[in-house]
């Protein structure tokens, strides 16, 4: 890979400006509770459609990295995570804030989020190519199982209800069959609507599921939290130290490194993400800490580990997304959707056919994290002021932006209707505890599943044994079964214990 040319491309004022704009948008979105990184990436994607792919991804990756980092700002300031990935930062960050050390906690969050982000980007740069090279040896049967593995992992972490996770995933798969049949071109479920010939557009569905439904659900479950926020914000001191001392850095480096490693490893697993990795990191670093009693009461090690871990998961999630075409989380699912929007073929061939572009993505990731450092340190305290804005004002504007965003990608009113229907469906899904992730993944991976299933059956004249005639296919099938069965077993065990 030609990194020198990638650096030259990215260190161009226009690209840097787009990264900075993305970082600023992510900073605002991540800070505001209720606006998630998935929502931000989904809403920004249609805006980037008219840009050159490098500019577009400069902005998208800026938003993605920054939103994960800035989710920690509201977690620290008002005990409410800005994005789900920041849940674990409330444990110690908020305690530090209540002791009048808000600025310091925000400084730790910024520095170690960047640490985790840079670490995971280096891992992405090292691991992506060998993984893609391995995947190039995959045949259609392996791809079929790989797509199913991604879906199965997403379902298996639907703790609340595996059956509902499976159902959501199956609905996503069914939706992916709308449009032209991928092998023979038969029209399927298009109802003579020309706009549906290309299938259900992914981005409007994402905007509906993560934008419209989230806003409506927040309005439905509206609680009077604005007053409590103001009280928390009023408590904050203005003049305390932001940067940690060298001694404090020494205490935090090992937990942050562990957190980053866990972040990358967890992020690689499809269906997981920063929220899970940060919780695991907090628990692991607490076990090995010399001061475990401080965890949960304002431990700087706990805060550093969780901050590094959720940003560490970003690089991990991108590794599987770029190398295999299987998204690590919902945000990377949108990024994959954006790649296809730019006409790129996702999967292992991306690294051979668009190697230059992937190289630029790596450098954008590095630069985005480096930009977050000064921007975060300088503006984190100012961002807290955003938390004083009444949530209703934001929700109202976001609803309008969702409509425009869904329309602007293809200038299609059908896309707006798809977004609206997805929004209503997402609202009921949230209400009755159906996980949204499997549905998104089903929609994204459906075509890959179907095409490879049918290709395999064509090659074997309809003999399904061909699906498991290589060691990799067998291994992937075992992983799929394990991913689906293990939550059921643990559920049964928990029930037995309860009895």
């Amino acid at each position, binding site marked *: 890979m030609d990194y020198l040319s990638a650096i030259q491309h990215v260190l161009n004022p226009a690209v840097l400006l787009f990264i900075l704009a993305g970082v600023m948008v992510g900073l605002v979105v991540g800070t505001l509770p209720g606006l998630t990184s998935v929502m931000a990436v989904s809403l920004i994607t249609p805006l980037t459609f008219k840009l050159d792919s490098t500019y577009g991804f400069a902005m998208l990756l800026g938003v993605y990295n920054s939103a994960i980092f800035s989710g920690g700002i509201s977690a620290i300031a008002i005990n409410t995570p800005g994005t789900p990935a920041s849940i674990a930062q409330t444990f110690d960050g908020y305690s530090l804030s209540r002791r009048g050390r808000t600025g310091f906690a925000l400084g730790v969050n910024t520095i170690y989020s960047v640490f985790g982000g840079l670490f995971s980007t280096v891992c992405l740069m090292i691991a992506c190519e060998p993984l893609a090279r391995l995947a190039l040896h995959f045949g259609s049967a392996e791809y079929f199982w790989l797509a199913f593995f991604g879906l199965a992992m997403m379902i298996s972490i639907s703790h609340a209800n595996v059956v509902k996770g499976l159902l959501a995933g199956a609905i996503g798969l069914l939706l992916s069959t709308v449009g032209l049949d991928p092998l023979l071109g038969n029209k*399927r479920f298009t109802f003579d609507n020309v706009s549906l010939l290309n299938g259900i557009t992914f981005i409007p569905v994402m905007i509906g599921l993560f934008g419209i439904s989230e806003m409506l659900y927040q309005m439905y479950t509206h609680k009077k939290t604005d007053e409590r926020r103001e009280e928390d914000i009023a408590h904050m001191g203005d003049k305390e130290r932001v940067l940690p001392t060298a001694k404090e850095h020494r205490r935090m480096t090992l937990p942050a490194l562990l957190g980053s490693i866990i972040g990358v490893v967890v992020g690689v697993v499809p269906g997981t993400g920063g929220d899970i990795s940060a919780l695991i990191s907090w628990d692991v670093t607490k076990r090995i800490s010399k001061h475990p009693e401080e965890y949960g009461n304002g431990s700087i090690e706990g805060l550093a580990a969780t901050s590094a871990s959720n940003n560490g998961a970003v690089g991990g999630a991108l590794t599987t997304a770029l190398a295999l075409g299987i998204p690590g989380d919902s945000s990377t699912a949108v990024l994959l959707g954006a790649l296809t929007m730019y006409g790129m073929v996702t999967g292992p061939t991306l690294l051979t056919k668009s190697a230059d572009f992937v190289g630029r993505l790596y450098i954008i990731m590095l630069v985005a994290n480096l930009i977050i450092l000064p921007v975060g340190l300088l503006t984190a305290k100012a961002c807290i002021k955003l938390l004083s804005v009444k949530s209703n004002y934001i929700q109202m504007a976001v609803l309008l932006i969702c409509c425009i965003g869904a329309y602007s990608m293809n200038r299609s009113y059908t896309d707006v209707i798809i977004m609206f229907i997805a929004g209503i469906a997402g609202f009921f899904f949230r209400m009755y505890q159906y996980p949204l992730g499997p549905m998104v993944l089903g929609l994204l991976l459906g075509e890959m599943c179907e095409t490879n299933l049918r290709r395999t059956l064509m090659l074997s004249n309809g003999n399904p044994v061909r699906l498991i005639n290589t060691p990799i296919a067998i291994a992937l099938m075992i992983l799929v079964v394990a991913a689906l069965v293990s939550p059921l077993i643990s559920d049964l065990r928990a029930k037995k214990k309860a009895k």
Partner: protein
Amino acid sequence: MKKITGDTILGAVFAAAAAIMLWLTNTTLPSKAPMGDPGARIFPTGVSIAILILAVAVIVRSVRKPIRGFEGVLQDPEKKQSATRALLVFLDLALFLLLWNYIPFLAAGFIFLFLQCMIFREKLLFSVIYSASVTVALYVMFSVFLKVRLNL
């Protein structure tokens, strides 16, 4: 007898949708394909059957262990108020999508936001300023800078 909950109804909706898709698959798609390809039917048929089975499992589970969604909303005044607001916002959104087809975006967007401000009982002057400024800002951003024609 146990009460029917929203959870059960949603399960039944999915089961019915899967049954319709199964019927559509088998009536509208060709059953045969060349070169050993199992055809365009196989995948949607398999997935529809899976949805049907899973939806029945959800219905059975919801009868045994229902999840409270809208249930009890009418008994709790605070929940009732929030639910009414969400419903009104939803209707406002539907109205906006309808109006957007017939009147310019600036007008449709203003009406959409203004009605929402009314739903949230904001002051009249604030509602006008907020609705106008947000609509114009978004119009300028998309129409002028991103060249997206917002008038359908």
